[in-house]
């Protein structure tokens, strides 16, 4: 049965490029992954063609592997890169894969995550990797994971309440991807679409409502600080060994991440290129609520996992609230302004009030404009809390048809050929060593051949010179005094014909 998110042209393209001979039973899953990616993130056919071709060019193998944990103890699936080629491994040792539909879907989601990495690997498509070192980054991981979850699972009402869907991988960190979209005032779909392509597209999405200049001067450094702290947090949560400084780094980095999220959100209101409208106010109310809810829940979850003291959690929370004040002022100002929109007839006054609202100074100057509005924090919070909120993003979440996906995964699992990833990689390295030795021998052979060729040609050259030098024309030949003629002499010397 044709799925409503399937694109027929894309299907033809996928069948042309993705071959069963190369990817075996994973082919139908790859088709599904690309179809969902195109649909959810609204990529056109040209963009998809580029992505599919890049994937096929770079991805050598997809398989079930064991001993993945020897390579990285924190991963269940991975994309390993070797000499420009990618190898996707799904961990077949993980205990969680039982004959259970939900678990098959987790496996599909993990495959999606790695395929997304592979699509953005190589050439100009470099995802959110560190361009200098070509290392992966945690921002790349959390963006990929959030995008993969979005195209694998259905969204529930609980997810809507939490303003996010929990993820399978990097579960304590992906909340940052949800927060980032809110602080940039854009839909998650837009942020993820940029992030799963490359840095340029990602920044373009982040700057949707900002001028390039404002982004570079007032926002990008907040984002750089946030990125730095994501690395610290990652190494505390998923680092190789525990360290006595972990708690201190956890506390500082988490505080900094929340602070920067609020800073970005705040600057984004002041510098926004958007006019103040009802729609904008409703979106702001939604984003404000989203940031507060996600921040509180993520802090609670991390606190629980690390058995943080209540005082430490409160300290982080208070610091975050302190940093949210600028944003709170601006959002409540914009809402207060739109609440009085019908009463403001003079465009110049509206202009002046809009400017003040974007700077968070309107309610402070309420009397000047004859506004009666509470100035304290509680009044401002209430203003936002009871305002209508618009969430375009998940009004109609896509209903993925997962039935056949789970059946295929189950079948692949039952018929799987298990490859020892550590051994496989060793063979790749050995092959390279063997190739290097072969190359070295060939080089040596060639050098010797060259050596052999050289004397030959030199000998020929010398001989020709000698021939030329001692060439005697027949007319000049004279009989020898002792009766021996030149011919006889020549015969003896064996040079007759050549004379």
């Amino acid at each position: 049965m044709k799925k409503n998110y399937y694109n027929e042209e894309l299907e033809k393209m996928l069948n042309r490029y993705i071959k069963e001979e190369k990817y075996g039973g994973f082919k139908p899953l790859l088709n599904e992954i690309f179809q969902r990616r195109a649909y959810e993130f609204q990529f056109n056919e040209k963009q998809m063609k580029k992505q599919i071709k890049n994937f096929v060019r770079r991805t050598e193998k997809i398989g079930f592997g064991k001993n993945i944990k020897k390579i990285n103890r924190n991963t269940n699936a991975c994309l390993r890169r070797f000499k420009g080629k990618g190898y996707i491994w799904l961990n077949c040792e993980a205990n969680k894969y039982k004959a259970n539909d939900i678990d098959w879907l987790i496996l599909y989601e993990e495959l999606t995550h790695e395929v997304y990495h592979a699509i953005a690997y190589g050439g100009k498509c470099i995802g959110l990797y560190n361009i200098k070192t070509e290392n992966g980054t945690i921002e790349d991981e959390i963006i990929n994971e959030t995008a993969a979850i979005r195209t694998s699972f259905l969204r529930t009402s609980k997810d809507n309440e939490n303003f996010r869907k929990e993820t399978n991988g990097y579960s304590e960190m992906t909340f940052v991807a949800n927060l980032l979209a809110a602080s940039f005032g854009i839909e998650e779909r837009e942020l993820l679409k940029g992030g799963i392509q490359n840095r340029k597209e990602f920044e373009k999405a982040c700057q949707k409502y900002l001028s390039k200049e404002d982004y570079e001067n007032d926002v990008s450094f907040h984002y750089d600080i946030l990125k730095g702290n994501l690395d610290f947090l990652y190494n505390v949560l998923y680092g190789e060994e525990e360290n006595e400084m972990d708690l201190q780094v956890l506390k500082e980095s988490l505080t900094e991440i929340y602070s920067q999220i609020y800073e970005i959100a705040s600057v984004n209101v002041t510098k926004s290129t958007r006019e103040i409208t009802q729609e904008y106010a409703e979106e702001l109310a939604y984003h404000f609520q989203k940031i507060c809810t996600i921040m509180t829940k993520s802090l609670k979850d991390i606190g629980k996992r690390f058995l943080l003291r209540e005082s430490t959690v409160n300290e982080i929370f208070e610091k975050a609230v302190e940093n949210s004040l600028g944003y709170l002022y601006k959002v409540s100002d914009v809402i207060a302004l739109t609440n009085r929109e019908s009463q403001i007839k003079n465009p110049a006054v509206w202009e002046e009030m809009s400017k003040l609202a974007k700077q968070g100074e309107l309610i402070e100057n309420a009397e000047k404009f004859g506004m009666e509005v509470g100035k304290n924090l509680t009044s401002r919070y209430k203003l936002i809390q009871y305002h209508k909120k618009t969430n375009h993003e998940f009004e109609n979440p896509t209903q993925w048809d997962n039935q056949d996906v789970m059946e295929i995964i189950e079948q692949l699992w039952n018929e799987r050929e298990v490859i020892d990833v550590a051994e496989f990689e060793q063979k790749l390295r050995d092959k390279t060593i063997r190739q290097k030795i072969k190359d070295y021998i060939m080089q040596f052979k060639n050098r010797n051949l060259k050596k052999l060729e050289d004397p030959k040609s030199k000998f020929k050259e010398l001989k020709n010179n000698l021939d030329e030098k001692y060439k005697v024309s027949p007319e000049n030949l004279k009989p020898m005094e002792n009766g021996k003629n030149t011919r006889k002499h020549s015969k003896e010397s064996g040079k007759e014909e050549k004379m």
Partner: protein
Amino acid sequence: MDKKEIALQLEINHRNFVITVDKRVFEKVENGKWQECSKEDKDVQALNKYLKPPKSLDII
């Protein structure tokens, strides 16, 4: 070092460190100035744990 470059401030063994967004480590020295730390410094080596990239995209 610009304030905009500071990603994290930490106090380790009564020493004040900052890590910049490009992962350099500085220590506060006399007169409140910041000096870039040597990689051999034991406390800096301990901090290196927090500067590693994620592993799932390893190059073999």
